[in-house]
């Protein structure tokens, strides 16, 4: 079954996540979708899978237009998606997960399903024990189960969203063999990834997305530099190299490994000095966020040593880090960073360290100051849930304590317009001038290159590149992000 998307649009408020995307996937092919963070791949796939409703455009299956609004409806039409976070049932067994959600069912009952599962698994050389609880499986095995389940449901178009993150190389090989077999059997596969190596190995054709649009399409054999250019755009003139400005050692990690996310962090060794602005690049979930959380003391490392301004931080928790001058700003502003129901004044009042009574006048004054300085569109009584996403970010930035030594920021300028981004970096850079070292993860490579002194690239849980910003460019970084350098 071939699938065609024509002029797909998706708007989230003012954000135009998919801006007129047209692409055609032929039956029996493996079609790669490449793009960096924020390019719109995830949104497009969720629209195809029925998880999200499109704002405009048409989807055609075998030339006929179709409409659907729910994932189950999409499945009935033959479209199935393997999500990055599997939607399965941890306490139920493999067999039960396989069976759950089927309509009608085999006349032979449970035994029939068991046999079907075994036949499918054998066809792809997967080894799944039907009676084991799913919570005991690895990510790769859960993926295999979901694949088999979708096939058993009669899915003809299979969408895989970043499937090779966090699985073993053996599982990856099995998965690729399975996908090739499916394509040979006239099934259609869409393979969404940021890993060039995987895409080049597997796909017949590739569509590259950038900023919500299709920026290019190519058949195999693939020309890597062109793909990179389509993914990341034409590199602007590199910023001039600033003179070496090395203060004292602020943060040092030695062979630190920690669990977290799908990839965790592996064998990271790094030295950051006072006043450095370090940008962490890499596709979402490649380990930068785990790195930031380990540096904040929120994730405990499994192995390795970490020193903060000369002190060994082994076994200490976030509050000890905070006392040492670390501030962490999470990406999930409302879920992790701010307290719904508390006004801006109350947020500031919480920072008071001494005394039993709250000095409301001071807190109120501080609130006015923050609102003015960070240009938050709200008043001291405003609660975070009433602020827009951009204003929530400004509030979070406004809550940074005076004189931090280390600032760890998860995607600090997400959702801000260009003017605000520029202004925020003005503020942060002044922190750096005062000796604060800043580590931040960011989806925009341009931004990283413009503000950072140094760039670290993360891929599959490891830090694969550590360069000065002036010594690198978009292409170079892009390659590293995609796993090729």
């Amino acid at each position, binding site marked *: 079954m071939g699938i065609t998307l024509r002029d797909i649009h998706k708007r989230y408020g003012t954000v135009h996540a998919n801006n007129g995307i047209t692409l055609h996937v032929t039956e029996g092919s493996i079609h790669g979708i490449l793009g960096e963070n924020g390019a719109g791949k995830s949104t497009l796939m969720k629209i195809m899978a029925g998880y999200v409703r499109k704002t405009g455009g048409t989807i055609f299956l075998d030339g006929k237009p179709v409409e659907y609004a729910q994932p189950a409806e999409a499945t009935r039409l033959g479209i199935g998606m393997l999500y990055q976070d599997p939607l399965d049932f941890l306490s139920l067994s493999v067999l039960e997960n396989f069976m759950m959600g089927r309509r009608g069912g085999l006349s032979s009952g449970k035994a029939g399903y068991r046999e079907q599962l075994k036949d499918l698994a054998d066809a792809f050389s997967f080894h799944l024990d039907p009676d084991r609880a799913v919570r005991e499986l690895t990510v790769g095995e859960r993926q295999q189960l979901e694949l088999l389940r979708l096939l058993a449901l009669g899915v003809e178009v299979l969408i895989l969203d970043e499937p090779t993150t966090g699985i073993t190389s053996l599982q990856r090989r099995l998965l690729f063999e399975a996908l090739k077999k499916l394509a040979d059997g006239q099934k259609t596969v869409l393979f969404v990834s940021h890993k060039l190596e995987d895409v080049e190995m597997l796909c017949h054709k590739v569509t590259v997305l950038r900023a919500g649009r299709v920026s290019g399409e190519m058949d195999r054999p693939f020309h890597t530099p062109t793909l990179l250019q389509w993914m990341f755009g034409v590199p602007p003139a590199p910023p001039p190299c600033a003179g070496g400005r090395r203060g004292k050692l602020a943060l040092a990690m030695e062979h630190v490994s920690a669990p977290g996310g799908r990839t965790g962090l592996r064998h990271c060794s790094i030295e950051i000095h006072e006043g450095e602005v370090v940008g962490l690049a890499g596709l979402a979930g490649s380990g930068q966020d785990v790195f930031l959380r380990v540096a904040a003391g929120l994730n405990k490392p499994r192995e390795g040593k970490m020193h903060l301004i000369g002190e060994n931080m082994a076994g200490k928790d*976030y*509050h000890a880090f*905070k006392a040492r001058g670390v501030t*962490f700003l*999470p990406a999930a502003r409302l*879920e*992790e*960073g*701010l*307290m*719904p*129901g*508390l*006004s801006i*004044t*109350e*947020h500031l*009042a*919480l*920072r*008071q360290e001494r*005394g*039993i*009574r*709250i000095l*409301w006048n001071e*807190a*109120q004054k501080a*609130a006015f100051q923050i609102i003015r300085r960070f240009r938050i569109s709200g*008043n*001291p*009584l405003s*609660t975070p*849930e*009433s602020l827009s996403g951009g204003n929530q970010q400004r509030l979070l930035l406004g*809550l940074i304590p005076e004189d931090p030594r280390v600032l760890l920021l998860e995607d600090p300028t997400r959702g801000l317009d260009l003017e605000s981004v520029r202004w925020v970096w003005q503020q942060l850079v002044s922190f750096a001038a005062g000796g604060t070292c800043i580590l931040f993860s960011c989806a925009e490579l341009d931004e990283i290159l413009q503000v950072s002194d140094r760039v670290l690239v993360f891929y599959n849980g490891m830090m694969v590149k550590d360069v000065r910003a002036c010594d690198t460019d978009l292409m170079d970084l892009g390659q590293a992000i995609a796993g090729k350098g």
Partner: protein
Amino acid sequence: MQWVRGKKSSLLQALLGTGAILGTAFAVTTLILFVAGAPPLSAFYYLLSGSLGTWLKVAQVLTGWIPLTLCACGLVYSFRIGLWNIGVEGQVVAGAVAATFVLRLGAESGSPVVVLFLAFLGGLLGGSLWAVIAGFLKIKGGVNEIFGGLGMNFVAQGITLWLIFGPWKRPGVGSMSGTELFAPQFWLPTVAGLRLSPVGLALTVAVLLGSAWVLGRTRLGLALKGIGSNPKAAYLQGLKPNRSILIAMGLAGGCAGLAGTFQVTGVYHRLIPAISSNYGYLALLVVMLANYRISAAPAIAFFFVCLNVGAIQLPMMLQLDSSLSGIIQGALVLAALLVYGWRKRKLTMET
């Protein structure tokens, strides 16, 4: 100060909401009385006159108001930090048991005032301890405070029964009427003529004012609010959720323990199996109806006790069971849940 308080809904909205709640409860109660074949107006009349008709009755209402409001104050702390402290009943009982223990120890002493003071202290500590155990179970054992509290309620009840029928039983045979009465000098003094204890009133007002101050003006109160709103964000801002949970539970249990002590020293003058008189559970309803604000709690508590005291007459006057008061209270809270929930949803949709 105007910039400090949260955005207040307009007076009109508040009146409409209250009207909707009262109206719904009124309608439901009238319907129920209808079904039961009783004259609604007479029922409401007896409820009113039975509670506020004479000074003696008012004194009785105030005597019930004291423990109910004390419990409610405590519950505002635990609700503020986001906990469902169903264990408040057991905390009242634990306080009562502790107070009885102190009173028995000091039975021979010559200074009743000191002993009574120590009894209140003991009750506060007893209730506090009972609550902190539930808090520990939650923090270290992952036991949800609802089930931990429930379990502790039953254990407290079991301990009380054992004491009444065992070590502390009346000379002769243990009976459901409780332990032996304390000597009169250990009874809380009352206003002449009325059975009302000024000490109890003063204590309750003090706890009310003190709690309002702690919750609204201190760092602890704000910390409880922050953690109750978002423990993860609070932790990032430097607060300590686990420690604050224990403090909140300790305060809640302490207030409940004071209520239990009052029941022992000012109402029953001994330990009986039903020493808590269900004030703990009722206080949960009071605080829910007050939308978790301490400012509305005393008035609502007063209203609830009026209903309870007024309903005592119903069996005699109208052959109705006195549980009518409980039905009205339940209907009020259910209506309030709906109104408050609807209002909150409208607020989040508007922004």
